[in-house]
């Protein structure tokens, strides 16, 4: 059963990825009236534009262009960025660890803080405490949903960097004066811990704290709300009453409720991940993070179509993979889903 589900779900993910690649191709390759002119500008000679069109393969038919591009993608070739003059794959590969470190840590922080908070506040009663929790969770959800992440980043930078000088300047992941650790995993906090490079660890954490907080605060709110609502509903469910009638301990009952609350929360965590990937583009720009998000913004400013295309494909591929993982995890916890 498990194998069948994984195969079926993976096939769906591959179809999704292929479909997404067509859409990306259409958006980035076909919507610009003429990429050659966009790259060269309008003040060049006709022959130069024509030569570039020939070189980029823009004179071939559209399905043919897509097919050539797709074959290149399968060979790990996303084309050359005309701005950095590197292969886009290398550019992205170099910057992905920075982005991953940021978004994974943000997701980790929001899960570790907000899910337990949701469980603690789930038990509803007539007490004042319960009412305060009600209003608190509602207000936080509404405020977080309305806060522009990039603006919050700027405000915090003004407070903690400009005014208080508690955090380092927002110029990348680590201060220039510090020797970075040798690259093993690409995650600075892990690499510097392994190598005992405490100065680098301290600097990396200092750079991480604000962007991670911004992402976790702005995008984590649904996790708190969903955990609270689900656990609350489970605690009121009949099977809990029956368990209590059968004499099960409170501890045991809470464990049962929690286990049953897990699947929707995991699914939502996958959705939140997708939003954090999008939010990272903005937050990286504010903190000059040097990850793929900032690369994407630069590529757009430079009309660097191969780079944009490569970035969107990779970002979408990552989120498709996350949705796949989440669905399989969901099945492992609650095998009933496949029937639905």
């Amino acid at each position, binding site marked *: 059963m498990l194998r069948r589900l994984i195969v079926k779900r993976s096939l*769906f993910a591959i*179809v*999704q*990825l292929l*479909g*997404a690649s067509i*859409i*990306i191709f259409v*958006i*980035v390759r*076909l*919507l*610009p009236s003429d990429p050659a002119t966009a790259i060269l500008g309008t003040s060049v000679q006709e022959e130069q534009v024509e030569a570039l069109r020939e070189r980029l393969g823009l004179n071939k038919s559209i399905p043919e262009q897509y097919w050539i591009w797709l074959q290149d993608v399968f060979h790990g070739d996303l084309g050359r960025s005309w701005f950095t003059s590197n292969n886009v794959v290398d550019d992205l590969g170099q910057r992905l660890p920075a982005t991953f470190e940021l978004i994974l840590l943000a997701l980790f922080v929001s899960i570790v803080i907000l899910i337990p908070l949701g469980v603690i506040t789930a038990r509803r009663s007539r007490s004042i405490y319960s009412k305060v929790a009600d209003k608190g969770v*509602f207000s936080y959800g*509404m*405020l977080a*949903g*309305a*806060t*522009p*992440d*990039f*603006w919050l980043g*700027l*405000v915090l*930078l*003004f407070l903690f960097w*400009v005014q208080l000088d508690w955090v380092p300047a927002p110029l990348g992941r680590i201060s220039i004066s510090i020797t970075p650790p040798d690259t093993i995993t690409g995650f600075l906090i892990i690499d510097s811990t392994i190598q005992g490079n405490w100065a680098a660890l301290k600097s990396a954490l200092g750079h991480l704290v604000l962007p991670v907080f911004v992402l976790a605060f702005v995008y984590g709110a649904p996790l708190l709300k969903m955990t609270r609502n689900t656990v609350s509903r489970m605690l009121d469910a009949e099977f809990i009453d029956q368990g209590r009638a059968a004499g099960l301990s409170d501890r045991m009952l809470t464990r049962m409720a929690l286990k049953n609350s897990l699947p929707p929360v995991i699914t939502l965590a996958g959705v939140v991940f*997708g*939003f954090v*990937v*999008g*939010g990272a*583009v*903005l937050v990286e*720009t*504010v903190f000059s993070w040097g990850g793929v998000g900032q690369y*994407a*913004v630069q*590529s*757009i*400013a430079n009309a660097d179509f191969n780079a*944009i295309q490569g*970035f*969107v494909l990779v*970002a*979408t591929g990552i*989120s*498709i993979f996350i*949705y796949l993982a989440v669905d399989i995890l969901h099945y492992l916890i609650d095998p009933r889903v496949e029937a639905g």
Partner: protein
Amino acid sequence: MAETASADATSGPQRFRAGSRGGLDYFFYFLKNNPFAILGLAIVVVVILLTIISPYIAPYDPQKTLPGKTLKPPSSEHWFGTDINALDVFSRTLTATRTDIPVAVIATAIAMFIGVSLGVVAGYFGNRGGPGGIASEATLRLMDILQAFPVFILALALVAGTGASTINVGIAIAFVNAPIFLRLIRGQVLGLREMPYVEAARCAGASGKRVAFRNILPGVISPALVQASVTIGFAILLIAGLSFVGAGVPQPTPEWGLMIATGSRDIVTGQWWTSVFPGLALAITVFGFALLGEALGKALDPLQRQ
């Protein structure tokens, strides 16, 4: 209005008795007991009012530089200070509503129109075979693919492809939000189409098209309106985010995200007012639309009335 009709039809033995205007009366009754809803409605009303009258009440021309007034802190003369281009931040913050609000509202309206019509078709004619069934199946598969994109990145790619302009930002936002409406409405329609009154209409000889658009469509307008309020807020955030990274509204249009981007460079030298005020206006506006959406959701859902 459709929600008024449906509210009358469902008012049963409740504490609140629907009057002649049903839904609307209930909405005011609801407001009285929900301070958050009043706050949301107040914010939205003020923002919409500003969209209309801001050019007449703004103390300065939002696009005309004031000689010798570069980066002045907030004062009685310039409430929100002036920016690096010697423009009055208060006037720009007010008139930015004229960019952000119409684009967000129109984009949401387009997304809602596309999403609701396709959603009704996909929900009502789905799993039924025939051309309608095939069309709805194709739509759903397309949605599966669109769902795979992180929303902000899809919008970014669309604007990058079509070129940064106010119109293209609106189109991109309509495009990324239409699937949300489609999914929501399709789900509602799947529930409604099994209702006895729909069956009755069908037995009475109504055509599929008539049932879908005369009997089912009114039933899904309320959830669509609720979603629309939330989506307008979300759309404003998207416009600002896209403009912030230079893939949105072009300079020197007064727009909140663009103002924050311009102001972000002044943070280092301590001039916080050029970015903080437009951001606050943006956050408060989105907050208002979200609260209103939440309130509409509760007020328009007959099952939640107590």
